[in-house]
């Protein structure tokens, strides 16, 4: 499915550009995007090193285990396949907390760390484990309490009440998150029996 979507976006983009008579845009877009990829990765290396360094400290101080013990019971229900003291739980909780607080660039390092830990417990290394799928469903539909960026955009556009969309946003993502978790739970249980 990913292969198909990837190809479709590329092919449709090129065909539409050709029909619009802007075929040269394809070249520019592709080159710019490739450069941007490197920029994003380099930026990410900086933040990621910072957070993974801090995460290592937290691990060695026993803090990650502590957090996992406090919030673990609720989270663990969603990840029945994980060991109760799995180091992945700590990283998952840190990732979700960062997402909820809207700390986007702190969330990614924890998320990638969580994936690495989940991969260690994955019996089939090139196939996604159920725990990974649950984690990604949670991660991509996660509630953000303050959508700071969009509030900034509204403020600049002279909104009478820039923050009035916080409530609607929380309801929308809350429903999406609930739906993702429920369907995931349903799928996992149906496959087991």
């Amino acid at each position, binding site marked *: 499915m990913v292969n198909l979507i990837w190809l479709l976006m590329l092919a449709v983009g090129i065909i539409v550009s050709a029909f619009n008579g802007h075929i040269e845009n394809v070249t520019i877009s592709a080159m710019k995007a490739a450069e941007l990829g490197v920029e994003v990765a380099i930026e990410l290396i900086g933040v990621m090193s910072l957070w993974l360094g801090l995460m290592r400290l937290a691990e060695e101080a026993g803090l990650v285990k502590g957090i996992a013990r406090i919030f673990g019971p609720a989270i663990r229900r969603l990840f029945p396949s994980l060991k109760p003291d799995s180091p992945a739980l700590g990283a998952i909780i840190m990732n979700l907390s960062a997402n909820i607080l809207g700390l986007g660039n702190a969330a990614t390092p924890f998320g990638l760390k969580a994936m690495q830990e989940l991969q260690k417990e994955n019996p089939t290394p090139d196939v996604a484990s159920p725990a990974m799928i649950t984690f990604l469903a949670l991660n991509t539909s996660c509630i953000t309490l303050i959508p700071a960026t969009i509030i900034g955009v509204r403020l600049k556009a002279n909104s009478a009440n820039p923050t009035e969309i916080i409530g609607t946003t929380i309801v929308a993502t809350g429903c*999406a998150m609930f739906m993702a978790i429920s369907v995931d739970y349903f799928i996992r249980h149906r496959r087991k029996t």
Partner: protein
Amino acid sequence: MNVIAEISRWAIPLLLLLIPVTAYLRKVPVYESFVEGAEEGFKTGVRILPFLIGMLVSIRVFVDSGALNILSHWLHPLFALLGLEADFAAIIPLAIMRPLSGSGALGVATQLINEYGPDSYIGRLASTLQGSTDTTFFVLTVYFGSVGIKKYRYALKLGLLADIIGLIVSVWIVTKVFY
């Protein structure tokens, strides 16, 4: 509201203070451990680089071609048929963009907010949509790629389902709360 904003503001400085202090008190060689952990950051960054570039190129070529505008133009009569507001079709590029690219979606949302006004129906809907759900497609490819997963199984369908629910609920709740 203000409490949550304050927590967001203080969260990182407090973590930066409390984690190293606790670690030091528990006899962890703080600086050396930090550096050891940080080393992983570089490796992870390099590992996700090809996935980032692959995705960004495909998404950019698609978006810059203007294909989304053509699509929303086609869908215009369909929404009129469904009894939704006429300019509802303006939201379609954002809805499609949201799971693909974070910066791309923000660009479309900003443009919609400036064009229709932040306190218009489209402006509020765009704001709500932008804040709800993440860039599913992008996160999946990069996260799975970083650990070498090739078969996603039902992950993508699940993520996109959540996005569709997010879209439907956004439309419903914005209409309900503001109109």
